[in-house]
């Protein structure tokens, strides 16, 4: 079967290398997307390297340095129990990025197969999956995440599950629409005509062709998920103290606005920059992968 199908792949996908180079040329020309890439790389590096960076223990308290403004010893100041804000932000990057990536992975791993199944099988399967998706989409993203996090109990892993499940319907819809679109292509018809099984058809022809829009949506959803995790942590439903997280740092900081404004300033800037980075990167990927825009 594969010997017959292989030439088909070559005919329908004649120049992947050229397509790849066109993507890179367009992506590199987009300065905003490059800035997004730099921001994301920086925060990923901080999150990964937090254990080896010269940061003090993020949970170590110092009662002699309570709510101290930024200084050479504490570049971003200290919090209400004398913990170093810079160190907590470095370690907090782990929680934020982990939540963004893991929750989107949950949404993609559950949503894309369901969406592909609905688009490929149509009929009753499609009707049931589509109605379920509509029902899930009807509840606002954050309210759904808060409700799920409330029922699951407050913790970072439960927040990731709640955000992932809340983001899943977007991927079901996207994968379904893309599958329906790919199914009308001639190469899918040809592959069917030569008797390729459903599984092989989905795996070799449909999945590779729906990956680009899923990738773009994933990047943009990571941005939303990071804000959602920060929001849940801000409400006390995400990362639990004393473990650092940008959202929970802001939750405490709001009580000391007059005395220690730096406690609220820096974690907020960090969330803003990393979310901006993912948004710029997502927009850049979408433009570079869009075949209509040369």
């Amino acid at each position, binding site marked *: 079967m594969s010997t017959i199908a292989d030439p088909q792949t070559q005919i329908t996908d004649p120049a992947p290398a050229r397509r790849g180079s066109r993507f890179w040329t367009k992506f590199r020309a987009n300065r905003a997307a490059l800035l997004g890439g730099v921001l994301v790389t920086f925060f990923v590096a901080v999150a990964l390297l937090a254990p080896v960076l010269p940061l003090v223990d993020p949970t170590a308290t110092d009662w002699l340095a309570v709510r101290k403004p930024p200084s050479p010893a504490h570049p971003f100041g200290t919090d209400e129990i004398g913990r170093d804000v810079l160190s907590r932000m470095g370690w907090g990057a782990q929680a934020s990025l982990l939540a963004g990536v893991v929750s989107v992975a949950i949404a993609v791993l559950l949503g894309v197969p369901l969406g592909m199944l609905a688009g490929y099988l149509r009929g009753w399967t499609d009707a049931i999956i589509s109605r379920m998706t509509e029902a899930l989409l*009807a509840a606002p993203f954050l*309210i759904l995440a*808060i409700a799920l996090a409330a*029922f699951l109990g407050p913790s970072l892993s439960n927040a990731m599950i709640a955000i992932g499940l809340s983001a899943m319907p977007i991927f079901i819809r996207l994968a379904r629409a893309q599958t329906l679109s790919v199914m009308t292509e001639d190469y899918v018809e040809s592959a069917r005509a030569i008797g390729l099984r459903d599984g092989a058809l989905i795996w070799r022809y449909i999945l590779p062709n729906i990956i680009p829009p899923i990738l773009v949506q994933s990047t943009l959803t990571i941005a939303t998920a990071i804000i959602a995790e920060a929001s849940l942590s*801000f409400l006390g439903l995400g990362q639990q103290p004393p473990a650092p997280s940008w959202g929970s740092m802001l939750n405490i900081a709001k009580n000391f*606005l007059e005395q220690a404004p730096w406690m609220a*300033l820096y974690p907020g800037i960090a969330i803003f920059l990393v979310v901006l980075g993912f948004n710029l990167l997502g927009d850049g990927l979408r433009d570079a992968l869009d075949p209509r825009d040369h």
Partner: protein
Amino acid sequence: MLAFLGRRCLIAIPTIILISIFVFGMQKLLPGDPVLAMAGEERDPEVIAYLREKYRLNDPIVVQYLHWIGNALRGDLGISLRTNQPVTELIGEKLPVTLQLAVMALIIAMVIGIPAGVLSAYRKGTWVDWVANTIALSGLSVPNFWLGIMMILLVSVKLGWLPASGYQPLSEDPLQSIKTMLMPAFVLGTAIAATLMRHTRSAMLGVLKSDYVRTARAKGLAEGVVLVKHALRNALVPIVTVTTLLFGELLAGAVLTEQIFTIPGFGKLVVDAVFNRDYAVVQGIVLCTGIAFIAMNILADAAYRVLNPRMTDL
């Protein structure tokens, strides 16, 4: 139009049933026995048995669901464990507060987002477009609860212009009510303004290329008239649809905004219910927002038809 609305409502029924199953199942599928929590620390077997009977927890799950949905259809969403008030009454009390916040936020979002989108499309590729896009993207990337904190710091703590928190009912003192709600509405409105600006820009870019805009210009009409009367009027169709659909975002954003500015609305009710494990309230809120969102979807479709009479095949 009535037939169209009727058809759309019928189509919405299966979705509403699914939402109700999901909301009901949320509590049933998860570990933990709510009766044990209600029975207090003594956990008297007689009390537990009484509570099980009272809340029909010994019935099969399908019977429990039918009982619950039957009550919900009659407007009975249960009793709040925390306040002992009916959930419907609680939601009815808090909803007007959030609606005031949402309406003010939407007005601010439209005042900022639509002109910025029109200007950005009209000046495409210039510095005006770049600035508008950068601000919009920043608006989408900034967490609104952080923006709220920073606004309190600047406007209330440093400048002392507006109160940092509190709520005054509109019916008691309209001016003070608007004053206390202005900053929260601005915070909530910024993210919506960014989305609205992007959609307005995109819709205007399409319309500005059309033949009737070219004809209007060829007739020698003033540029302002061309932009507002000919271009914006036609671009309004997708803008109105998006605005209606932003309702969900407004409600979700209100949860955090109300928390920061201590506004006793729908959002604060959710958070308080979550922390007090007041499941009936959480379920009631998710069910109500879901149904409201579907209603807004139907309204958006209706608005689409009114604004664009060519759309008859919906």
